[in-house]
């Protein structure tokens, strides 16, 4: 269970990007978070993935309150979240070849011996051919790079996936392929998903439940339960 309770977060305490937001993702559940651009949903996703310390509020992971964020968070807890970002160009270190990009979390957590098996396996899963693995980010397309970023997010077998506008930069067929990869992974591991986006058609089809940002910040997200949020059109 991933529970965000009354989270206030941002980059300036006087004008927080997120004010009083609450959201729950049950184990194995896929939750879609819809909202207009600039509303703070990416910031909330970063809080959920332990990448941004909130100014107020509580984050509970499996009932345990999270007290530390970023480097201070225990490594096992940090790596329980696989994060995919909106822009693969910014989310990939420009100096690493795609194979090293995917292998980086394994090397960072001292599992070098897994690199040889896991990297080709994951490349196959996300649909990257072997010749692409020796290229650097500027030598591949956005879609190919996002596939590599998804592979990197899955390489440590996270219990939660946080997809922040994962498909916003991609065409329809790549979107469908990446969503299928995420769903296969969830079906085999029972991982939870928080998908942030503004494409309500996609999120409604992809997720068990979609929540609109207004419901998150008014506290209604916990009451509405399933189904489509009423009355709001994403701007």
């Amino acid at each position, binding site marked *: 269970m991933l529970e965000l309770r009354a989270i206030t977060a941002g980059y300036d305490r006087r004008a927080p990007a997120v004010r009083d937001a609450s959201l729950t993702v049950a184990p194995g559940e896929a939750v879609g978070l819809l909202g207009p651009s600039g509303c703070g949903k990416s910031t909330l996703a*970063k809080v959920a*993935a*332990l*990448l941004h310390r909130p100014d107020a509020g509580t984050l509970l992971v499996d009932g345990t309150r999270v007290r530390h964020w*970023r*480097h201070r968070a225990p*490594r096992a807890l*940090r*790596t329980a*979240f*696989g*994060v995919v*970002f909106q*822009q693969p160009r*910014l*989310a*990939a*270190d*420009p*100096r690493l070849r795609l194979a090293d990009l995917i292998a*980086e*979390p394994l090397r*960072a*957590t001292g599992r070098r011996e897994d690199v040889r098996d896991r990297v080709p396996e994951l490349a196959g899963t996300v649909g990257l051919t072997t010749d692409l693995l020796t290229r650097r980010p500027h030598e591949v397309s956005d879609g190919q790079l996002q596939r590599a*970023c998804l592979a*990197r*997010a899955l*390489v*440590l077998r996270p219990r939660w996936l946080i997809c922040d506008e994962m498909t916003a930069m991609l065409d329809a067929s790549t979107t469908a392929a990446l969503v299928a990869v995420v769903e296969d992974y969830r079906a085999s591991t029972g991982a939870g998903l928080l998908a942030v986006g503004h494409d309500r058609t996609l999120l409604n089809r992809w997720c068990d439940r979609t929540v609109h940002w207004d419901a998150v910040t008014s506290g209604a997200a916990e009451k509405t339960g399933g189904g489509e949020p009423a009355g709001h059109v994403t701007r």
Partner: protein
Amino acid sequence: MADTTVEKRRTTAAEPAWRAHGTARRSTHTLRLRVSAALVGVTVLAVLLVPPLVQLDQQAVDLAAKLRPPTWAHPFGTDDVGRDLLLRCVYGLRVSLLVGVVAALTATVIGTAVGATAGALGGWADRAVMRLVDTLSSVPHLLLGVFIVAMFRPGVWPVVISVALTHWLSTARIVRAEVLSLRSRPFIDAAVSGGASRWRMTVRHLLPAVLPQAGLAAVLMVPHAMWHESALSFLGLGLPTHTASLGTLIQGARGSLLAGQWWPTLFPGIFLIVPTLAVAGLAGVWRERINPRRRSELML
């Protein structure tokens, strides 16, 4: 159909002007690059090859031939004890270049380490380190350098230490600013989420990204460090007077300049100016290639 032809014509018409502009800029770059590279090459070859190949003693005193103007036997003339000035200049350049390169590299290593640490740690550690940098920057660095050399016996290493310890500040600032801007990028978030420690984040992702900037700062600092060596030696605080360096040569020739003997000052002066301009020219081309917008920020 008509529209597309008009569009096409427009782009082809616009292209030559744009190209011509680009080529003009590039050709001045190329000229500067070639001249600078040739001068640096000649300098390096001279200081590396002349001492072992030419079996002449730069310390050889010939009191019968003191303060001779340039002749075929002594192309740069002789100094006040009859030593050949061409040979003295080459040996002096060797010492000055060594001091410049070692001091610049040391300063860059210190600056990069301090800047990267401050940027990667952030928070109070960053503030404390940068206030220290501000404090040191507020003292004129030649004065600080004089203070440092004064603590040791004259020699090459005190000068290197003095120049290195007063010149890492600007590199530290550049590296810290780069690290801070990189730290907020999503690829660093991805590394944190992938379990990277602070150390791994810094060494694997941040330092490789700032290395070109730091390398450029190091090259730009070589001529600056050479000038500092000369300034300290000229003030009589740097190298001992019997060690030929461009600074000690110019210092020793001060008296004869007033007597109308121009060659003991002019030639070491040229030897100081030409290589420093050449190195600065090379660094300038490099700087504009890697970062055309930051000319003013990297002025050292």
